[in-house]
């Protein structure tokens, strides 16, 4: 891919939440939502992030966007370490990393006009005169495919797809380098979903944006991503170019996840691995392979106590798995 500096890299990133209990509501355990994630995102690249609900995708996204202070580990933006920086030191980086969410409605102030919402980042960063900001807002609305008149209206007057466009307009206002997209099309109908995906791909080409694209819809992720990371209980278990991960999944979890996708073709005969039981919680996960207890395979006890190394098994294809899964 690119041999220069990645836009973003994380190093053994951890985000643990205290689980409180007892009469005094003391921390009795840790919810290890993100538990040692190392990855990179290259300039202009889309890294897809998939996994079942609760595996830590949103927490990873928010930690990278520095909405959370990580428990440990590093986050570097174009080689500059962000972990441990003060609020003031962080400020110049804040505008470089923006987020869009599944339900833009929740992140759009219902009492503000769309114009005020899209203008807000400029106001916060004290940029431009009033009339310049108006002009920028008009340009942003046009860029995301909304009419100029949208500026005078309120979020509730728009459909889900249009609200997502408003969220995107605000997120790209300050010309960020990296956009964390957390399930941005999950709540939309298919026809509207493809409109928003096209918009994101177009903005990426035009502005050279990088995306961390989080979704539980694997067909969507496959379409929009250059590489895909598969997350399970706080860890990345497999990472590979998009085509490779679908054609040659190696980890038992990746295989199960891909095989569960219903294919919109009635002549297709599914060859399905049905996982037993539920998505577990990341409180007290096993020390070793976190998927072993659910994989249905017989395991040597040491696999539950020691983690396999994250290994590159073919160019660009990384797996954290013991020899049973990697087949060698």
């Amino acid at each position, binding site marked *: 891919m690119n041999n220069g500096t990645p836009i973003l890299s994380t190093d053994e990133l951890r985000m643990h939440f205290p689980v409180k209990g007892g009469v005094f509501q003391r921390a009795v355990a840790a919810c290890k939502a993100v538990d040692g994630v190392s990855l990179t995102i290259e300039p202009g690249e*889309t890294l897809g992030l998939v996994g*079942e*609900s609760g595996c830590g995708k949103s927490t990873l996204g928010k930690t990278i966007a520095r909405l959370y202070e990580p428990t440990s580990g590093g986050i570097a933006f174009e080689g500059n370490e962000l972990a441990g920086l003060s609020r003031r030191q962080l400020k110049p980086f804040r505008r470089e990393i923006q987020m869009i969410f599944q339900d833009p409605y929740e992140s759009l102030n219902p009492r503000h006009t769309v114009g005020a919402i899209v203008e807000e980042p400029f106001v916060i960063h004290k940029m431009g005169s009033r009339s310049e900001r108006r002009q920028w807002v008009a340009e942003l609305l046009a860029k995301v495919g909304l009419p100029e008149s949208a500026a005078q209206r309120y979020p509730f007057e728009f*459909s889900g*797809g249009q609200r997502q466009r408003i969220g995107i307009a605000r997120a790209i206002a300050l010309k960020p380098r990296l956009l964390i997209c957390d399930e941005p099309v999950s709540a939309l*109908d*298919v*026809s*509207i*979903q*493809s*409109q928003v*995906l*096209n918009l994101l*791909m177009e903005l990426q080409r035009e502005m050279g944006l990088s995306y961390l694209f989080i979704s*539980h819809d*694997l*067909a*969507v992720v*496959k*379409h*929009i*991503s*250059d590489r895909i990371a598969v997350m399970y209980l706080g860890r990345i278990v497999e990472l590979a170019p*998009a*085509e490779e991960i*679908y054609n040659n999944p190696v980890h038992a979890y990746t295989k*199960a*996840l891909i*095989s*569960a*996708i*219903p*294919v*919109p*073709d*009635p*002549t*297709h005969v*599914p060859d*399905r691995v*049905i*996982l037993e039981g*539920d*998505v577990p919680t990341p409180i007290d996960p096993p020390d070793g392979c976190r998927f072993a207890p659910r994989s249905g395979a017989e395991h040597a006890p040491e696999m539950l106590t020691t983690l396999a190394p994250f290994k590159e098994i073919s160019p660009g294809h990384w797996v954290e798995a013991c020899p049973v899964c990697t087949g060698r």
Partner: protein
Amino acid sequence: MAELDSDILLRVSDLTTAFDTDAGQLTAVDGVSFDVRRGRTLGIVGESGCGKSVTAMSIMRLLPQPMGKILDGEVLFDGRNLATIPAEDMRSIRGNRISMIFQEPMTALNPVHRIGKQICEGLTQHNELSPDEAWQKAVEMLEKVGIPSPEIRATEYPHQLSGGMRQRVVIAIALACGPELVIADEPTTALDVTIQAQILQLINNLQRDLGMSVMLITHDLGVIAETCDEVCVMYAGRVVERAPVREIFANPRHAYTQGLLNSIPRLDGIPKTELNIIDGMVPALSELKPGCRFASRSGREHEPELLVERQPLNEITPGHWVEACPVCTRG
């Protein structure tokens, strides 16, 4: 009333349902017709707001009162029109011969009652069973839907279960009385694909074992392809096309069906290429016109008169129906 072909369990014809609102009476389901065959699965697909749930609620006579009304049409089940039978007769059918599974299991479960008790309620309401027999049957149902340690689970409350387990409980309740028809309204939409695969397999196995019919509402064309025998495609309150599942995927005729099938990202598609879209948005109920409601989004050239009148329903090949003008009908 016409006699039904013995193969057909439920026939919905010209069903029309409206709501009284501040903006006047709005028609949410506008002359919808389809059949559910015995032992088969009928899929209903369409974007949000197209009337899928209102169709289900009309069949079940669970429309919100007093706003919701069936204005016209028939729901024929076992020789009777469910749209007009007395409420009391409907109560003895609902949850017994026809039952329903909703998207959000918590809305169907009572948070303050033990799971076992909730399954028993349906059982004792429709059958003469002693409390002990009912409890035994409830535990059996939990086992049948794949809940581990069913005796213990029966004594627990809904909040103690995961989303996937709750949906299994809802299925246990729906199936406890051995219904002939199950209406499942987006039963897996809130679940992860891995859990969805479990639930769909479960519904499939139970259907095979118990011989029931299923009406499956979903917006997921993958789920439709995998589980349904026949498909109805709804748009803006109407069924625009219905056909056997292979036929609808291989030979879609209506511009809407084609648009829907073309716009989904596919695993075997070329990554990072522009996706096909359907321009514009679904019209609001208050803006609906009698003519073809998809015309303005279809990207086709239209003569103005097509938009004025409702288009005819044509059977283009056996079992394949399209409600369209000649442009779409010819394909």
